[in-house]
């Protein structure tokens, strides 16, 4: 999607290993979000950021941490991956936090074996 890229697109990792997913934007938007999408659950918010070094937890934050050292990059880290973290992860950006649509990345499909 224009202005936002996620890497990697696919990853297979072993239980117990750390994993970092990257979201990069070129829109200079203040707000960035990480969601996970699972069958039967829809999209659930993991963490979000409202500025450089400003982050907060979402609905399903346990086992995840985030960092935002630059406006354009938002990193999601699974400290010690578990099979329950097998999912599709989406990053999204928005210019404001009110009355504004999100732009989503293409997603990262993560499999923990």
């Amino acid at each position, binding site marked *: 999607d224009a202005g936002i890229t996620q890497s990697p697109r696919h990853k297979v990792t072993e239980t117990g290993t750390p994993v970092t997913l990257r979201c990069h934007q070129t829109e200079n938007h203040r707000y960035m979000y990480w969601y996970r999408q699972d069958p039967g659950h829809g*999209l659930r918010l993991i963490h979000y950021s409202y500025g450089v070094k400003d982050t907060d937890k979402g609905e399903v934050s346990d086992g995840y941490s985030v960092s935002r050292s630059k406006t354009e990059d938002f990193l999601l880290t699974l400290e010690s991956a578990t099979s329950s973290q097998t999912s599709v992860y*989406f990053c999204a950006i928005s210019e404001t*936090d*009110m009355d504004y649509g*999100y732009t*989503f990345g*293409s997603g990262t499909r993560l499999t923990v074996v």
Partner: protein
Amino acid sequence: SQQGEEDPQALSIQEGENATMNCSYKTSINNLQWYRQNSGRGLVHLILIRSNEREKHSGRLRVTLDTSKKSSSLLITASRAADTASYFCATGGGTLTFGKGTMLLVSP
């Protein structure tokens, strides 16, 4: 927990027919948004309706909002095979909370 809940879960129609999807939510909202997701892709923002608006149009899309019933509907007129996708409602006021989606299949 999910704020929005779409209905039906799945919908199958023929090209040229209209498709209507509904969304119900539980608490007060600032706005309600609809998104489309094609298989294997990210979500795409379709339309946003504010809590003080009752109806909004965008091309072949018509969205209504009834805050007294805490519900919204998305109407796609003259559906095309390319409209085949999952459609999600999301309620906002800070971060967005998404429903589980309606899968729409439009057959040629």
